[in-house]
């Protein structure tokens, strides 16, 4: 729905004509939706001004960062935060970094590594927003979800600027909570469904010690990037196990012994995708790795702060693997090239796209965060159901695998199962969506975890009717109803 000339020019006055567009021709690149306009604000003040105008003219709006995913109704104002791309601060002593929404993880990670730090890069990939709430390969030692955020600068749906925690009181970013109860209860920037209305214009994230080199010794020409050497005190392995139980035992022991820098519950199919540079090679390597594998498994990176630490961790790992009858994949252990590739890709998180989209162009997933062993039990059933889709040739064959990992040394966890399929085949998409709906319902009916997508009233019923509280909150902070939930901040 087009804005009137008058209203259009009022917005244009704020950001300049080159930073606003309502031409239908750009909309296919913005999710194919017919937005009222796409606006590119450059800073918090411009965001505030735009939001206030949206309130004045009762126009709904949504922000995006790189904008990989999202749910967007027609006719709204889309705030593309691309111009807000600065790293504001890196506090090394107190270990946090402050970023604007369009700083991608690759940029922040590279800057941090120069200084001996890194941070939680989301599994979606290093090409996504650093500020994103989410999970990733590195959760074991860098936490996940909303637990990495400290202070957040938030333009509320009404256009007020709220600076949470210490930021509002002392102009420092080290705490996002208080005074009193914490606004981080609602300041979460998840991908839909459900995320904080308004716009996050800056956020502080925790950073963590990086025992590796200031720059990865990457060599080669894209896409064949390898490491010229395995960095000192680093080791990467993939272990398969004779049973899911054994694997989970190993996973828990590794968590409790705090030896893993990264523990990524890849399945073999994902390892193959990650390592290889095209689909054909992917299939070939998958076949090869399957031969070496005895069952489910995980990928692990050991990183020592010093040689003694490294030796200790390796010793413990060996012990645990022996105890749980794990078997190391020779293609990684005996081939430093492969070890290096995985080490690099699984720390820089630059190969997620290979694992998910390359083969078929589309994938549908059911992620679950929380209690690892519980979600694994559910995933076993979902995997069994996936096999029938594989047999019918509707999804890429990964043997019905699921994946996941421990978070915070195994205190929490993440389990995900996805289907990769060909977007050109409507029957594939239909079957996958049906499988997804059935398995989510089963998760809910059998009390594993809640359905993530669906009518909020339906989902909320089984979850202490949280949606009614959320809806009241939304009304209170967005009286004009202009701030749709935060869209995609991926």
């Amino acid at each position: 729905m087009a804005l009137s000339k008058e209203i259009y020019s009022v917005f244009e006055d704020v950001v300049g004509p080159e930073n606003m567009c309502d031409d239908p021709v750009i909309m296919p690149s913005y999710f194919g939706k017919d937005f009222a306009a796409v606006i590119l604000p450059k800073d918090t003040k411009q965001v505030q001004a735009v939001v206030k105008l949206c309130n004045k003219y009762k126009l709904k709006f949504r922000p995006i960062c790189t904008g990989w995913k999202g749910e967007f109704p027609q006719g709204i104002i889309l705030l593309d935060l691309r111009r807000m791309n600065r790293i504001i601060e890196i506090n090394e002593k107190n270990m946090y970094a402050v970023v604007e929404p369009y700083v991608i993880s690759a940029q922040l990670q590279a800057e941090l590594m120069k200084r001996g730090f890194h941070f939680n890069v989301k599994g979606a990939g290093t090409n996504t927003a650093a500020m994103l709430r989410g999970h990733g390969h590195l959760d074991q030692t860098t936490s996940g979800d909303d637990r990495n955020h400290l202070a957040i600068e938030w333009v509320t749906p009404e256009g007020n600027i709220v600076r949470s925690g210490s930021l509002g009181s002392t102009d420092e970013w080290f705490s996002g909570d208080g005074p009193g109860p914490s606004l981080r209860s609602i300041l979460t920037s998840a991908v839909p469904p459900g995320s904080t209305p308004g716009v996050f214009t800056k956020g502080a994230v925790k950073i963590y010690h990086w025992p590796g080199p200031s720059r990865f010794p990457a060599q080669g020409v894209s896409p064949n990037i390898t490491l010229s050497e395995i960095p000192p005190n680093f080791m990467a392995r993939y272990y398969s196990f004779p049973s899911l139980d054994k694997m989970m035992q190993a996973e828990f022991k590794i968590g409790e012994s705090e030896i893993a820098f990264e523990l990524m519950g890849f399945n073999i199919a994902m390892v193959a995708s990650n390592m290889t540079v095209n689909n054909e090679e992917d299939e070939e390597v998958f076949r090869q790795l399957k031969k070496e594998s005895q069952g489910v498994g995980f990928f692990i990176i050991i990183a020592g702060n010093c040689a003694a630490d490294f030796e200790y961790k390796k010793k413990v790992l060996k012990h645990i693997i022996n105890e749980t009858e794990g078997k190391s994949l020779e293609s990684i252990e005996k081939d430093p090239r492969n070890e290096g590739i995985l080490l690099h890709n699984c720390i820089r998180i630059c190969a997620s796209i290979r694992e998910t989209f390359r083969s078929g162009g589309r994938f549908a997933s059911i992620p679950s965060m929380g209690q690892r062993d519980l979600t694994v039990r559910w995933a076993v059933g979902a995997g069994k159901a996936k096999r029938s889709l594989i047999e019918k040739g509707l999804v890429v064959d990964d043997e019905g695998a699921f994946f996941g990992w421990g978070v915070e040394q195994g205190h929490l966890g993440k389990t995900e199962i996805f289907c990769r399929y060909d977007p050109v085949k409507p029957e594939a998409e239909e079957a996958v969506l049906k499988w997804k709906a059935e398995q989510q319902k089963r998760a809910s009916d059998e009390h594993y975890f809640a359905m993530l997508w669906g009518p909020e009233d339906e989902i909320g019923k089984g979850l202490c009717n949280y949606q009614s509280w959320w809806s009241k909150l939304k009304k209170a902070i967005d009286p004009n109803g202009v701030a749709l939930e935060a869209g995609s901040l991926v």
Partner: protein
Amino acid sequence: MSLEQYQDHMEMCMRCSCCKFIPMQRVQGHKYTYVCPSITKYNFHSYSGGGRLNIGLAMLKNGFNYTDKLLDIVYNCQMCGACGVSCNYAMDMEVMEPISEFRIKCVADGKTNPALEKVITGLRKQGSMVPVTGKRGDWASGLNLKNAVKEKVDVLYHVGCLTSYDKDMQRLAKATVKILQKAGVNFGIAGDNETCCGGRAYQMGYEQDFLNQAKKNMAMIKKAGVKTVVTSCADGYQAFKVLYDKFNLKGDLEVLHISEFVDKLIKDGKLKPREKVDLSVTYHDPCRLGRLGEPWIHWKGKRLSKSFVFDPPKEYRRGTHGVYEPPRDVLKSIPGVKLTEMTRIKEYAWCCGAGGGVNESNPEFAQWTARERIEEAESTGAEAIVTACPWCEKTFNETIKGNGSGLKVYDIVELVEKTI
């Protein structure tokens, strides 16, 4: 090929935004991570590689709606290929081909840019992509060079439009011939018979005009019996080596860029870099010598049903086999030259700004792009930026004049000329 034939590739685009950045493995910090000049300047996703695919796909499905904004998006692109390289580190799909086909379709449907129309009119009349003054072979007067059309030579030196006609760039041609003479190469030029390779016309979307030029050039080459073409223009290199091959016009012709040729001559001992050239430099990879200069891969096959896998396996051109090391080896062989690399190099180099018709249709954007590159070059501490394409050099020089930078600009042949 046509746009329709790339529909399934366009459908593979997941809007991951990798096309806006250098390949993720290469990111070394906050700065110098953007790789696409178009979206870096214009910011709307539509200007990115992925955005162009999204729009192309939508128009295939819903019909073509040529608005001013669409044409602004289409023509404000240097067709530099960086988006495809970044995408293809992870994805198996064509990016530059559908983008190119989209532009070709715009031209075929009469949706052209007036500035480019003017250039192509000149091409059709005079066989040149730059304004013509005098004769094409005038730069060689008094040099007594062999006429490759009339005499038997081993190597045809294709000079290129800009180098032939631009008074400032003619020195590159002269330096090149000096080098070839010093190495004792049996070479000749086509002189006034030389005509534009057609490469820039293709970039601009004028496929038929490109094909006309290509056929003219190949006819001349066949008549002359030349087996090897050497050029000092990256556009020319890509035209002869890649585009002519793509359209099955190249045959067995060996195509070398002067940097490759010089590298070989030095390694074979036929050229000896003797004189010291005290200069700290950084090297700019021209798009069409680097990522877009890699050989064409002819492939025919079918897509297997269950995934995006082909039979026979489809090999993608990911920018990996361009000419990267030879110019570097040449620079390293010059005594006194100290090479420091920029952050964005090789297959993920930042474009100079001149390609795709942008130099003609939007000089301000071209110069903005060049300014970004100059700044990156200056950040290395180098005294000079060296490149291997006269269009890059011209754009850098114009930009430096405008912003008062002290950075010097050299073509690689200029430094080789100094050292031999």
